[in-house]
């Protein structure tokens, strides 16, 4: 009887240990798989952005679109507005990312967008259209 009780306690302890182990394993897994994905839905947004990337690069190379000073894509003044859906979808996703980062860092989405615009301008290829701080468009 007494031996059985000891076994019960041991079984319960093992069960608790297993649950805790599974919980921590899940936590570790989530930490590593969500690296760089700082908010819910970030993975989906990233996938969509990756899928759009070839079309966007092509449009930038053609001089149809450029990067404005707020961190969004914009049709270069005078250029034909082709693939508007791609541009607006990209901007919507960017807005979602800026909003999430702004919330996380306790700042505004506008500031996040402006910081992103600086990053984009630095890494932009020669010949791509960019907008300066004053709102003027120039070719890099």
């Amino acid at each position, binding site marked *: 009887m007494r031996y059985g009780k000891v076994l019960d306690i041991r079984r319960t302890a093992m069960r608790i240990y297993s649950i805790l182990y599974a919980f921590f394993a899940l936590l570790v897994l989530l930490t590593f798989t969500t*690296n*760089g*994905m*700082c908010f819910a839905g*970030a993975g989906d947004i*990233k996938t969509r*952005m*990756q899928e759009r*990337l*070839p079309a966007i*690069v092509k449009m930038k190379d053609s001089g149809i679109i450029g990067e404005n000073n707020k961190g969004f894509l914009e049709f270069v003044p005078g250029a034909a507005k082709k693939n508007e859906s791609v541009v607006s979808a990209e901007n919507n996703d960017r807005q979602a*990312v800026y909003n999430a*980062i702004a919330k*996380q*860092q306790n*700042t505004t989405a506008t*500031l*996040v967008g402006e*910081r*992103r615009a600086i*990053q984009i301008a630095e*890494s932009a*290829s020669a010949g791509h259209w960019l907008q300066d701080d004053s709102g003027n468009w120039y070719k890099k």
Partner: protein
Amino acid sequence: MKKLLCTLSLLLFLISLGCTKHEVETRSQVEVAPVEVKPIHITIDVNIRVDKALDDFFSDIDESAKELK
């Protein structure tokens, strides 16, 4: 007798001086200038944190864009 009285009174006087409390009060005043947190520092800090968060998110996409160029 007079001499003895004089000596005793002098001795008493000296003893009384020894019993008194002598305190030297020193005061030092340190002026602390008011700490001024300039807004520019806060802005730089926010910018750094935002840049880091942007890098974390967009690094893969930026890499892919470079490969496409």
